[in-house]
């Protein structure tokens, strides 16, 4: 009968659909991302991947430690990305181990550019013929910065003279703000390191500040930007502020091509840390070049060079 035949066809189609859906569901439920088979117990260190080959055309960018290493990295990585965009060259941030110095890495060629203090630059210039591209622009508008001697707000130290017989935390010996300028400030007050009960070098301004904040040292010498921040937060109190000295510079190794040097210089001078480029930068205000960069007046470095020579720091 035609009607029953039509009903049979309909049921067959329905059954076919049901079976098809079940099959699709079963197949779909069995599908998943492909997994790599790895043994976690049968280890062999020789299986570690080979180190990546040196990247040709990539310039290493080193820096003097100022804050915690991670903070320094977070601060400089965005700068390098901006430089890559504006110069067309590729840059790679290089973290100098605590046991090494950027000056020597510029000298051995493992770093081509470096954000270094005046003292480090003068050493690199003297030892390896490095060149200063630009100087950091500070609120003083003359590419200078200062060093601060700070203490805890509850401390009885109110002047440099009060440091006699007290402990003092310093930056690394190659640091301008953490070592050279504080030494000059002590000398101006008629003090020397020998007048202190103790002193210790720290790898960064942040470590110096932590040494004071933790009470391990009665006072500390740090860069002005970090020092004023902590003072404004009420965590530290100012003991003395230095005269202005030429701020940090961007140094370049002598064997970098002039075209690259010019391109990097132009890009750095074009950096707008408070306007256009501010959103891309990471706490650039904590750096020693918070307002960007400017060309260097070499004569301004002479006084620093003389003081360093006098103190025997510049070797």
């Amino acid at each position: 009968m035609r009607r029953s035949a039509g009903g049979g066809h309909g049921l067959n189609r329905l059954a076919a659909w049901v079976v098809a859906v079940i099959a699709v569901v079963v197949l779909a439920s069995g599908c998943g991302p492909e997994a790599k088979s790895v043994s976690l117990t049968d280890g062999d260190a020789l299986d570690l991947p080979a180190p990546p080959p040196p990247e040709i055309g990539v310039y290493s960018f080193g820096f003097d430690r100022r804050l915690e290493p991670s903070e320094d990295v977070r601060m400089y990585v965005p700068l390098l990305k901006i430089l890559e965009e504006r110069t067309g060259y590729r840059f790679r941030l290089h973290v100098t181990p605590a046991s090494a110095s950027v000056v020597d890495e510029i000298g051995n060629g493992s770093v081509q550019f470096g954000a270094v203090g005046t003292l480090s630059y003068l050493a690199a210039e003297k030892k390896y013929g490095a060149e200063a591209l630009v100087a950091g622009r500070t609120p003083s508008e003359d590419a200078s910065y200062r060093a601060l001697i700070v203490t805890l707000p509850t401390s009885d130290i109110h002047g440099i003279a009060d440091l006699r017989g007290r402990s003092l935390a310093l930056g690394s010996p190659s640091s301008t703000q953490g070592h050279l300028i504080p030494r000059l400030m002590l000398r101006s007050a008629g003090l020397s390191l020998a007048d202190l009960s103790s002193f210790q070098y720290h790898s960064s301004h942040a470590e110096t500040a932590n040494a004071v904040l933790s009470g391990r040292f009665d006072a500390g010498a740090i860069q002005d930007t970090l020092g004023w921040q902590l003072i404004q937060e009420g965590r530290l109190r100012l003991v003395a502020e230095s005269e202005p000295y030429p701020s940090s510079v961007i140094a370049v190794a002598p064997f970098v091509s002039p075209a690259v040097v010019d391109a990097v210089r132009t890009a750095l001078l074009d950096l707008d840390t408070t306007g256009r480029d501010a959103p891309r930068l990471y706490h650039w205000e904590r750096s020693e070049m918070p307002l960007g960069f400017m060309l260097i007046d070499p004569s301004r470095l002479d006084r620093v060079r003389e003081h360093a020579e006098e103190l025997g720091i510049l070797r």
Partner: protein
Amino acid sequence: MRRPTLLLGQRIVLTTTSIVVVMGLLTVAVLQMIVSQTLGRELDEKGLATARILANELADPMLDADFAGVQRILDHFQRDGGSIVYAYVYDPPARRVVHTLSGTFPGQLAAAVLLPPDSSRSVHFLATERGRVRDYGVRLLDGLDQEVHVGLPEESIVASIDRVTWLIVTLTGVGVAVAAVLAWVLGRYVTRPLGRLAAAAEDIGKGQLAQDIPVAWHDEVGALADAFNRMSARLSETMDRERRRNRELTALNAVAQVVSTADDQTDVLHRAVQEIIAALGLDGGWVVLLGEDGQPSSTVAVGDIGRDLASHCTELATGTCSCWATSREVGAGRGDGERSCGVSSLVTPAKTVAGPFPLFAGGRTVGVLNVVADRAIGLNDHDFGVLQGVCRQLGLALDRARLWRSLRDREARVSQLLQTVIDAQEDERKRIARELHDETSQSMAALAVGLKAASTLVDRDPVRAAQVLENLKDAAASTVREIRNLVSDLRPTLLDDMGLVPALNWSASRRLAEHGVDVVVTSHGVNDRLPPRIETTLFRIGQEAINNAARHARARRVQIDLSIAQGIATLSIVDDGRGFNVDLATNCDHQRRQPFGLLGMAERAGLLGGTCTITSLLGEGTRVEARIPLDERPQHDREHVA
């Protein structure tokens, strides 16, 4: 091969259950996929966040090359992380790795999940001896080569997915069961009224159109049932209408055949009523014919009704039935109304009498038809229509029969009239011959003898001869008058010369006044001469009436009047004689000699489109009136009433 047949309810259950199963499976699959993706995404976010947190903690010690501190942080992380499979930090350039795995670090793991150069994070799926593991890798810090990796197990995801899957499967199973039950209930709810509809449709298909489906639902099924009922009713009406039309056509066809093949009036009625009764399924019927005076003249009955009528209705049996009286009203024949006659006895609880249905012919009722029907069958409006149609046909048939009879009578009369004319011509010739022989010839012979005698006497006795000639002159003058009278009898010259009125006056004076009858001839509106044919016709009618009055009326006074009004010339001849029975005088069967004089007057008037009526009662004189229209038209255009 015959396929299995499922009822609609079973198909609904099967289809609904299948749909629920399919939808449930799809839901399971989709939800499993969604849950899997959601949990996987959450795990990925959690793993990457964990790796970033770990990288932040490891950044400074790693950059300070404080690997002991790094190891310490990793161990704390492993211990506090709970389900973490492993964590390690890898420095590719230095090929240095600090990890939480026991024993030697598997270098293949670092190779398998190594971050691509420009990528800051990665997710890898690993099949390990500790189950499926998701590896989340991030840079120690953006822009550096060092990588931090955390391995998280997938058991939590799989367990969550399994729990959700089983929950959905269970719910789907319950849903299927509930859906099946609901589908069964729905199937019953839907198919029950449909089953009733199907049964009703089958009954209707078997011809049981009277069945009505109860419309108990106000939905599509109810609408369908209502439509079914309407369709059934229309079908029933159509079939009834077709049956009625068939009956009507059958009856009309049968009656038409009878009417067309039979000439005899009684035979036509008898056979026609038989056909009607047979076609409409009636018990019987009868026709009462009405005469010229409107009174019943004869009855034709069919079936047992004739005997019943004879025994119950004496009026009908004696031809004095008055049933016809109601037929004069419009709409007569609707049913068995009150009857005061014996017909009422035929109306019983089982029988009904319908009628009378009038039979019209020639503008009048010539008879009525009554029928007897079984009440169980009854007669409806269409049956009445059929009967009325049949009655119209019968009326036409009766009228045709009457006209046929009238035509035959007329042909007979015309034939007889022609013979009479021939005889009259012969009689006239005989009369003229006799008069010529008896009078004019004798006079001329006597005149000839007298002239011979006078010629003889001229020589012998001139005086006597002159006297004889004088006598002969008088005789000749008398002969001339005889001849003039003879000619005038044939056609008076006065009619041609002076017109109709003087001719009639002359004829009346000559035929009646000479016998002492007082004759008065008048005219009204006769200003001009009438057309010759009309004058001749009216003169001959008047001459015949005058002759009849002279011969039979014994009248003392005869008044002749000719008037013209409204285009009609009317000639009346009225006498105060003894009168006569017109029907007897004009009925050939009762006449010893043919009444051709009277019929001739009517025929003459009829030839000119006119009429001639004779009114006479015994002892009260006779009036003959001929009316002829002046705008003479052919005879066949006018209705002739004799």
